[in-house]
């Protein structure tokens, strides 16, 4: 892979094409030399920023950052990344290298996002290489009859319209190269300005989104996942759906290839009915997309130890990402074994990739080794199945072997009330109180912790009496675990172009009040129910609701009064009041892809390598907001940063504060909210629409008020703005009282036409009180002066 300096187009090996070159030594015309492979041209003219490097979109990033400034929340006041340190950066001090606390926080956010982007890219690389090996480079990128604009992120960022898996190689090589280049900026003595670090954060986010799209599209087209199917099947979800009487293989992680190989092996050997294959975390989503109706999803990432400590799995197959790093120890305690499928997570296990499967099975069943590394999916599948079949009868005593109540009480009596457990609980759960009650024979307090505990075990690590607190919580909650039986819609992948056409207008005008994406991990502050509660609220309010990852699983776990999960209650169509599960983490690309397609398909903006214009359009017109209520990982950070660069705000739960900085607009700074009318060129006050780009809410109520507020966009029509404000006001009133109005409501009302009809008199009174004045309205807002020129050229037929 190299890069052509003249054309700024990447190529595999070498391509030189010159219309005319005159120099002192030669005159060349019509030269076109191609050696190797170049991505095929497509009909859309090249855009301004193909394959952007670190500084290419800096101007756009600066425009965003001048509106949404970081509010730094240092998790550490020191820097210990080089041997000059430790350096004290508190209260304006600088480190030996010259960085201050703000710059250090931006640097750390850059580092976090680089980890996330690298992880997704590595995942994409693994899928692409292995599936090319299996299906060939010419395997077409066919996302079904209703998706004509395939891979909108890739097209937008790189300018490449991929037609085959081969085309994705050049895309992924670009991402890999950029990650290396950008990560180098974190080294001591490189970048030194917070704004440029934040620009790099955005860059990582954008690269991350390309990698997500490559990964998910590769597996969709090669493995036969649902292709933009609004009626993808409903699959079983919950511990209670697992048949523990059969040998159970549990797959954990994010890379579906080992799981798919296990299913294939079972089908080929006619054993499928004899073995349960169940998944946790995103591998489970993708297993459901692969095997469809037959698949079982145990639950989100935080269900790992619930399931393992219940003793159910016989064989645990780990692929990559978000797997407890001491899962081997946990497995050993229940007599289960671990098979590691990825060289990124070897876990100290012996490598048996090239050993005969029968000999490995024997070692595992006899307990000679606690597990094995097998870096070949087919071999791993054979070992997993054979081991599960032999091991299951031997370890039948472990299945659902949680303590009985009297054992729980006996353990609880050992509690000295030191409260170390509470001091170490990230959720601040009242563990001591629960143990004291259990010691008196009342385990209901322990049981009440089940929904809020995400099984980090920090309480157990610090208990001086060695009480297995998590196990006690699980034992007290056995009946709850057994009754976990739900339905989750299998991830459908992309949004259809026809769906975008159907809703694009209403989204841009604001008459569909917004697109709300519930994404991310399972570090929910108060349990999974808050995610389901928010989903139901906004689907009923006719927002378009999308979901992915562990949040998509959480949504399935709460039923309405008629016993329906949200996936049964709401349609799977990308429409007002629909609930769309796109799939695993990498399927987040389809949510970003949908907002990009609104700009491209509905507004007909050029897509090819036209990042800044499209992002500016999304920021100002597409009322979308991401909600990562339990965001935990570095991957979640890089996914969020990809959305920020695209102009989509993200709300996280209170644990999200630990990402070290927020991006907040200052509504009191009037000057920050000026932009332009892209048609007239007039400088206009566009208002705080949206008010923030990255925001951690303290409570679910706060998030529910913030969601409609962050869906407000400068281009809303009066009717659309009134609908959005109706939602904002009504949720505010629900939580704070019918006599209350949001105090910033005057900022969002431009003319009387924006005033929501249900609250008209009250709002008009308030506007009078605060001395409100009419504000300009434009249907063509932009925060980039350059866009005015682009519009002008386009009007003049200049493309």
């Amino acid at each position, binding site marked *: 892979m190299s890069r052509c300096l003249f054309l700024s187009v990447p190529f595999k090996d070498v391509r030189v094409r010159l219309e005319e070159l005159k120099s002192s030594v030669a005159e060349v015309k019509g030269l076109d030399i191609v050696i190797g492979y170049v991505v095929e041209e497509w009909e859309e003219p090249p855009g301004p920023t193909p394959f952007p490097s670190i500084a290419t979109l800096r101007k756009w990033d600066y425009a965003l950052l001048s509106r949404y400034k970081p*509010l*730094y*929340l*240092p*998790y*550490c*006041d*020191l820097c210990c990344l080089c041997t000059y340190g430790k350096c*004290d950066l*508190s*209260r*304006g001090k600088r480190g030996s290298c010259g960085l201050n*606390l703000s710059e250090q926080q931006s640097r750390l956010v850059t580092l976090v996002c680089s980890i996330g982007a690298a992880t997704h890219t590595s995942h994409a690389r693994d899928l692409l290489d292995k599936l090319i090996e299996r299906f060939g480079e010419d395997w077409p990128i066919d996302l079904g009859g209703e998706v004509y604009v395939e891979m909108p992120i890739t097209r937008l960022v790189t300018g490449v319209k991929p037609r085959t898996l081969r085309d994705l190689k050049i895309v992924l090589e670009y991402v890999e190269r950029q990650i290396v280049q950008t990560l180098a900026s974190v080294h001591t003595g490189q970048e030194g300005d917070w704004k440029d670090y934040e620009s790099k954060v955005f860059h990582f986010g954008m690269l991350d989104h390309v990698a997500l799209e490559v990964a998910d599209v590769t597996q969709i087209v090669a493995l036969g996942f649902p292709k933009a199917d609004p009626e993808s099947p409903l699959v079983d979800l919950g511990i209670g759906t697992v048949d523990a009487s059969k040998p159970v293989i549990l797959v954990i992680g994010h890379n579906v290839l080992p799981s798919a190989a296990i299913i294939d092996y079972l089908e080929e050997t006619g054993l499928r009915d004899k073995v349960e294959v169940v998944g946790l975390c995103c591998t489970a989503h993708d297993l459901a997309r692969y095997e469809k109706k037959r698949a079982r999803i145990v639950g989100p990432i935080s269900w790992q130890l619930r399931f393992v400590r219940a003793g159910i799995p016989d064989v645990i197959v780990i692929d990559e990402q978000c797997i407890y790093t001491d899962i081997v120890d946990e497995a050993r305690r229940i007599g289960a074994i671990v098979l590691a499928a990825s060289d990124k997570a070897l876990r100290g296990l012996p490598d048996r990739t090239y050993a005969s499967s029968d000999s490995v099975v024997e070692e595992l069943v006899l307990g000679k080794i606690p597990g094995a590394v097998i870096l070949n999916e087919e071999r791993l599948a054979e070992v997993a199945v054979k081991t599960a079949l032999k091991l299951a009868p031997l370890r039948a005593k472990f299945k659902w072997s949680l303590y009985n109540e009297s054992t729980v009480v006996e353990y609880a009596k050992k509690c000295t*009330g030191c*409260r*170390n457990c509470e*001091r*170490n609980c*990230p959720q*601040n759960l*009242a563990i*001591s*109180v629960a143990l004291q009650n259990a010691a008196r024979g009342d385990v209901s307090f322990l049981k009440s912790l089940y929904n809020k505990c995400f099984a980090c075990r*920090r309480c157990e690590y*610090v208990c001086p009496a060695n009480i297995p607190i998590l196990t006690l919580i699980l034992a007290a909650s056995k009946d709850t675990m057994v009754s976990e039986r739900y339905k989750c819609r299998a991830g459908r992948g992309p949004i259809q172009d026809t769906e975008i056409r159907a809703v694009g207008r209403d989204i841009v005008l604001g008459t569909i009040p917004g697109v709300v994406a519930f994404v991310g991990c399972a570090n929910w*502050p108060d349990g999974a129910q808050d995610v389901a509660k928010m989903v139901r609220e906004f689907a009923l309010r006719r927002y378009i609701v999308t979901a992915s990852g562990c949040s998509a699983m959480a949504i399935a776990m709460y039923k309405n009064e008629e016993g329906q999960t949200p996936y049964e209650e709401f349609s799977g169509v990308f429409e007002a009041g629909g609930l769309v599960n796109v799939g695993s983490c990498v399927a987040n690309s389809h949510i970003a892809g949908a907002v990009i397609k609104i700009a491209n398909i509905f507004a007909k903006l050029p897509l090819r390598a036209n990042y800044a214009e499209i992002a500016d359009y999304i920021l100002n017109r597409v009322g979308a907001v991401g909600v990562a209520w339990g965001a935990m990982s570095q991957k979640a950070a890089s996914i969020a940063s990809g959305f920020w660069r695209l102009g989509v705000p993200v709300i996280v739960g*209170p*644990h999200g*504060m*630990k990402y070290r900085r*927020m991006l*907040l607009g*200052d509504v*009191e700074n009037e000057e920050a909210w000026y932009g332009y009318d892209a048609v007239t060129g007039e400088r206009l006050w566009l208002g705080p629409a949206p008010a923030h780009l990255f*925001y*951690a*809410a*303290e*409570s679910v*109520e*706060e998030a529910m008020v*913030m969601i409609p507020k962050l869906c407000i966009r400068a281009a809303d029509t009066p009717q659309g703005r009134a609908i959005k404000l109706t939602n904002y006001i009504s949720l505010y009133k629900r*939580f*704070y*009282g019918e006599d*209350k109005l949001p*105090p910033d409501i005057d900022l969002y009302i431009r003319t009387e036409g924006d005033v929501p009809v249900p609250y008209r008199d009250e709002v008009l009174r308030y506007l009078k009180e605060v001395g409100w004045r009419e504000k300009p309205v434009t249907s063509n807002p932009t925060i980039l002066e350059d866009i005015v020129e682009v519009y002008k050229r386009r009007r003049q037929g200049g493309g």
Partner: protein
Amino acid sequence: MALEYWLYGDIPPGPIKASVLTDIKTLPDIFKRFKNRLFAIGSQITKLSELTSLDLIDRVVSIALSLGAWISTSSPAIVKALDARGVKSYEIAFPLELAQKISKRSAELVILIGYPYAYEWLILNYLKHYTQNVKTLTLEPYAQPNATWTLASLPLSLWYKNMCSLEEMLKKGVQT
């Protein structure tokens, strides 16, 4: 009692650590050093109330009113309690938006209670580094090392008694 026993289990603070107030009687002396006080009440106050006593919210509101502080909250339960008492001197403000504009306010002392632990830990660290003219005092049951002043971590029952004592002290007109 070890001087810093309350740090156990938390990420160690930076070089600037909170002063730990082990005697609730010392609080009025601190309060009276600041005329402009902001009393921020978080959503977790309802959970603390469930674990201690149902009258906790009323007591916290009473403390805030006795201090003559401007109250800021986004907790629906607190808003309800304030409305029930006819209190007007409060605003509904989300914590991050409040933190963002706190330096523009005239508040000299920010008193916090009822926030998720790590959430408050980080807001306090923002205030510690970026709004040095504002002092912070946390009344949480768990010590907050990034505040200017913090109570020591105490069992909830003892902490609740301290809140009751503080309320009584302020009601009796201990000079603030």
